[in-house]
Structures are given as structure tokens and as C-alpha cells.
């Protein structure tokens, strides 16, 4: 067995593999396919202060090698998470990355504080980049907090002030240079960045002449976007000191290795779980095989080791 353990900005994980927020719910369902405590961490669906009903259906479109979603952050809310969901993850012995979403820095701070105080997360991932909700209108042309470095700083500081847990900031690929908000997050004290969230996209049904999603616009995920994600991880790795959790179309260990070589310390399996519910654990196994095959003792030796 190779040593796959990583430390992501203070969060110790027995292996680098977690899951994309919103693609694993709160863990229960996929625990029927494999022991989810064997993952490096479980990242929760974005949690908000109040439960959210999300967008009207249809919320999904399949696209070539990917999908668009406009779930709209349907979630049980922090209260129900603490009561009904976290205990399961804790009993299983999972490492938990609590992904949070709010409408203001205060919301995020409050969510981080409650997760921390309840011991219901081991790290915080702040979703500043959900394309499917438009509560936080920002500068001209920008609709996402993560598109505006100054806002990234403001939000990051607020969260950092509210918790001692490691804080990761989740960034958007809908941008010219992702290194800018990443550096902003670093400056503001973030312990890591997570990327990428989905690319904005639209699917139209030519027969009905209507957009397929009730929300019109959705977020594109899956293997289709993997090359974009690897590039953005590489862009960030060149300039950041804090670690990166890379995601975007990871379905197997070879995909994950692309992210690690590009500079990611952690990797998340997202949409690919939908087609293969045990994809995340297969990535863990595959990374171990890779290390053994290449005589790599510690996987950390390979982080950013693109030649």
C-alpha cells in the first residue's frame, strides 16, 4: 500500500479523494454501494441557513460527455443537516467538508460557525460560485462572488473570523484568469481553494423551441469540462502557496492524476458518480495502484510534478 495521505491546509485526509458538493448528497445513498468512510473526505451538498426548495424542474440536461444542472441549491438547511445528516457521517467516521452557501458574508460566517460548534464538519468549503442562484448580484457583467476578487476577500475574511476550521474557497471557471480570485482568497487567509465549479451553459430543445431547463441557464459538469479544469488547477498551482482541491470530470484514477500532476493536493469526483456510484472509491484504489506501479511511496511526491 502506498501512502496516499494528504494535508489540505490543515485538513488531514487519508487519501486525496473527496466528492463534488451536490453530487453525493449527504453520503447515505452511496454508502449502500461502498463504505464511504474510506474516502479522504465527504463533501456535503451546499448548506444554507434556511432550507431551500431549489429551482423548478426540469433541472437536468444531458450533454455530450457531461450534463447541465440547475438544481438551485435545494438543501435541507443547516438545522436539518446538523440533526439528520451529520450524525450519520460522524458515526461512519467520515472526514467531513461542509460546503456552505449564503447571501452575504454574514450568512457564510454564521454557517461556518454552526458547523464548527456542532462538530459537524472538519473543514469548510465556501461555495462562492454557484451559477444557479442569483441572490448575490455583484459588479457589472459578474453574477458570482468568485468573479470579483475584492468580494472573495471580503467573504473569505468573514468566514475565517468565524471558525478555526480550515476554510476552502470554491471558485468558478467562468472567468478570464482564475488565479486572480484564487490569490485574493489566499491573501484573505483561505486555507485552500476548490475548483472548478460548473461552466455556464444552455440546452435548447429545437422541437419545442424552448430551453430545456426551467431556469434556462445551467452549470456544465462532467468529463466534457475536464481539460478546462486541469488548466485552471495548473494556472492556480503556479502562483498559490495554499493547496488546491481539483475537480471537473474526474471519473477514474488516471483523470485524478492529471489534476494531481497539474498541482492539486485533493481531488473530487462529481458527476461521474452518477454513472458509476462507486467511482470515488475506485479512484482511491486506482491511485494506490498507480503509486505501486510507478514505485511512488507517498502520493504527495507527485503533486504539481508535471514535467
Amino acid at each position, binding site marked *: 500500500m502506498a501512502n496516499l495521505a494528504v494535508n489540505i491546509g490543515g485538513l488531514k485526509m487519508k487519501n486525496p479523494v473527496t466528492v463534488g458538493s451536490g*453530487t453525493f448528497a449527504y453520503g447515505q445513498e452511496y454508502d449502500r*454501494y461502498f463504505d464511504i468512510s474510506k474516502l479522504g473526505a465527504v463533501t456535503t*451538498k451546499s448548506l444554507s441557513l434556511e432550507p431551500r*426548495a431549489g429551482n423548478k424542474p426540469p*433541472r437536468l440536461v444531458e450533454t455530450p460527455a457531461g450534463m447541465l444542472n440547475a438544481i438551485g441549491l*435545494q438543501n*435541507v438547511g443547516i438545522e436539518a443537516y446538523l440533526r439528520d445528516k451529520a450524525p450519520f457521517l460522524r458515526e461512519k467516521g467520515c472526514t467531513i467538508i461542509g460546503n456552505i452557501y449564503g447571501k452575504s458574508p454574514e450568512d457564510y460566517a454564521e454557517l461556518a460557525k454552526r458547523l464548527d460548534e456542532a462538530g459537524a464538519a472538519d473543514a469548510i468549503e465556501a461555495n462562492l460560485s454557484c451559477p444557479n442562484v442569483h441572490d448575490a448580484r455583484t459588479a457589472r457583467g459578474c453574477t458570482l462572488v468568485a468573479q470579483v476578487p475584492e468580494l472573495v476577500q471580503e467573504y473569505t475574511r468573514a468566514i475565517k473570523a468565524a471558525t478555526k476550521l480550515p476554510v476552502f474557497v470554491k471558485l468558478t471557471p467562468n472567468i478570464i484568469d482564475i488565479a486572480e480570485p484564487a490569490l485574493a482568497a489566499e491573501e484573505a487567509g483561505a486555507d485552500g481553494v476548490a475548483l472548478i465549479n460548473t461552466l455556464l451553459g444552455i440546452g435548447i430543445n429545437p422541437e419545442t423551441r424552448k430551453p430545456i431547463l426551467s431556469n434556462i441557464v445551467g452549470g456544465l459538469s462532467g468529463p466534457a469540462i475536464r481539460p478546462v479544469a486541469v488548466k485552471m488547477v495548473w494556472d492556480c498551482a503556479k502562483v498559490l502557496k495554499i493547496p488546491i482541491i481539483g475537480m471537473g470530470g474526474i471519473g477514474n484514477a488516471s483523470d485524478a492524476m492529471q489534476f494531481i500532476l497539474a498541482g492539486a493536493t485533493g481531488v473530487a469526483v462529481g458527476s461521474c458518480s452518477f454513472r458509476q456510484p462507486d467511482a470515488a472509491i475506485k479512484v482511491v484504489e486506482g491511485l494506490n495502484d498507480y503509486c505501486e506501479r510507478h514505485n511512488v511511496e507517498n502520493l504527495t511526491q507527485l503533486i504539481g510534478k508535471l514535467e
Partner: protein
Amino acid sequence: MPQVSTCEIQAHMEVAPDHYRLVLHAPEIAQEACAGQFCMLEVQEGLYPFLRRPMCFERIYKDSISILYKVEGEGTRLMSRLSQGQTISVQGPLGKPFPLDSDVERHILVGGGIGIAPFPSLAEAIISELGTTPEVIIAARTESMLLCEDEFRQMGCTVHLATDDGSAGVKAFASEVLRELNPGPKARAYCCGPMPMMRATHDVCQDLGITCLASLEAEMACGDGVCLGCVVEANVEIEAERMVRVCYDGPVFDSSLINWSAY
């Protein structure tokens, strides 16, 4: 527990224009599966199509399952090209089955078009587990699209046919046929088909004061409760959510739990 397994195609035949029956060797899944549940099929190896396709169990045998499907788009078109001996990845069984209630005196299965697909296995279950024989209303656009008539008759079911164009059976909507059957208060309807047909069936059942179990459809990504893509709006909260998952909380719902005005 649901699982993912690679299953050999035992038979594959066209049963009506653009409608196929696929019989898969799937012992573990067959053993667990109940009528009303479904599976997610990987149409072909690789990333195209990206998502699995949800298909319910037409029949559940000892070691195998059968799927009755209609060619709708690209995925089912590719599926129709598969041949005996090839393998296909199947994830299942998923979702909640039809509840079987021995207090019910009259079971009426109402299938519209390909919506008939879950009912052969349900009829079997009602016969074997409740010891009664259900009645079946098979509705379709036209005669050649009426599916499974022989199957139901062989099981001893009374079969009522309805077509939109009157080419076979009565020229009426399935829901109207149901009303004509004068189901008493101890009857129960089970329906599956296009949303408007299910909504109409729900309305009729409300009028008649009987329970209607509807097997819903929705676009699915995971088929397993995690993505929240397949939700429909409910009148109540299920696991603290009002937008309920067709794949996990359903696909079978008591129709009175669904907010039909959204459709």
C-alpha cells in the same frame, strides 16, 4: 441493496414498431427487485451517452429481468442495436416498489403507451402475493402500440383496451375507461404513462374516492437520490423536503401526495 452489474443480453426483440423487449441475465438484481422499482442502464460502454437510462422492470424472473422500452431518442436508439450475447451494465433495483395491500379488493392497472411497462411484474406480484387477479386498462395511440395484451391475458387478467383513434378497444382516454369500470371504494388504481394521462387518472380517482398509485417519470442523472435532478413538487414533505425525488422517494407515489397543478 442496489448494485451495479454487468449483465448478458439473453434476448432482444422488437415487439411493436419502435418498441423492444430486452431480457437480461441479472441474478442479483432479479432477486432483490420488486414491481415498481427500476434500474439504470448504461446504453453502451464509454461516455456516450453520458448518463444511464432509467427503465422499470417489466418482468422479474428468477435470474433475469425484462425491460420493455420505446425508442425515444439517441440512447434508446443505440440500445435497440444491441444484440444477444452482448453485455450491458445495469444498476438496480432502485426506488420504491408498488405497495401491495391485501385490504384492496379490486386492483386496476392503468397503462398508457409505454407506461404499461411496470405492470406485467405488478400483475404477477398481485397474483402471487395477494392471491387476486388485477384488471388492466391498456391505452395507446393506436392498435399496433397496444402492448402486453397477451401477457396479461395469460395471467388471467381482464383486459380493457383503449385507443386514441379507436382502432382497437374503445376510443377513450384510459382515465375514462377507469371511471366506466365503476371501481368500488375498496378498489385501487395503479397508473403509469404520460403526465397528462396520469393527472387525469388521479382526478378520476379523487372523484371516485379511491387511492391511485402513480409511477412518475422525470429526467434523471443519478437515479439514486443524490443529485436532486428528478424532483417533483409534493403536497407534503418527505425526508424534510417538499421537492421530492422521483428516483428515491418514488417513482411510485400515492397520487394525492403530488402537486399536479405544477404539470
